[in-house]
């Protein structure tokens, strides 16, 4: 169980909507994962993180996106992170 309550989508926040929509689009998901929802406690920080991830993990570099995702999984394995 998470150590903090994980926020649901705030219908009154256009900024949060835009952030969640960007996450779903970037990750090709139909839901917003817990880790992205947990970050909205500090929405500006969450958005900054998400933008950095888009630049790094997108297909605009020299390594293909799928391979960078593989490196992400490898890194997570080294840290024994189930998430």
């Amino acid at each position, binding site marked *: 169980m998470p*150590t903090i309550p994980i926020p649901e989508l705030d219908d009154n926040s256009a900024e949060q909507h835009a952030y969640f929509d960007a996450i779903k689009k970037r990750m090709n998901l139909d839901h917003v994962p817990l*880790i992205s929802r947990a970050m909205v406690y500090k929405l500006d920080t969450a958005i900054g993180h998400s933008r950095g991830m888009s630049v790094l993990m997108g297909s605009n570099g020299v390594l293909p996106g799928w391979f960078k995702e593989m*490196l*992400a*999984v490898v*890194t997570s394995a*080294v840290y024994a992170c189930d*998430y």
Partner: protein
Amino acid sequence: MWVEAHFVVMAVHGLIRLADGLRLAPEFEEGSSRRPMIAIPDDKPDTTDLLGEIAKFFEMERAPAVFRALGRRPLYLKMTWRWIRSILEPDLLSRERKTLIALAVSAAAGSDYGTDFFGHEARRLGADEEAIWEVLCVVQRFAGLTKFASGLDLRPDFFPEWGEDGG
């Protein structure tokens, strides 16, 4: 492809932990005063050919110290090298990509020996500065993200249809 990648993780994580445990100096760092935990044996008659094969595989004058250290037990060196070689040789993933994975593992594990060795190997196999930068930045991002997720005790939810047991 995923199994290949994780065999690289398995082989490299073990190898660099051995190198770091033995306190081996990075292969390509000059002037290190670090003393290994145990003496690294010279080539013995029963390891000369194999260490030569290893040196050739990595295009080095001598086999890397971590393999020379394994030469204390020639049969163990032989079995270990055959296994590691089979993992590092190209298959669905190219040798360069496998080496970039090895570099990511080394950086994530904080291994000077591994980062030095596989960074050098990646360049030798054709990776440029941009590729190495991207690998290390992916490690940077996910080294942090994994701690964020673990610290908040988040459970995987990327595939909710799989359920909590993952399957």
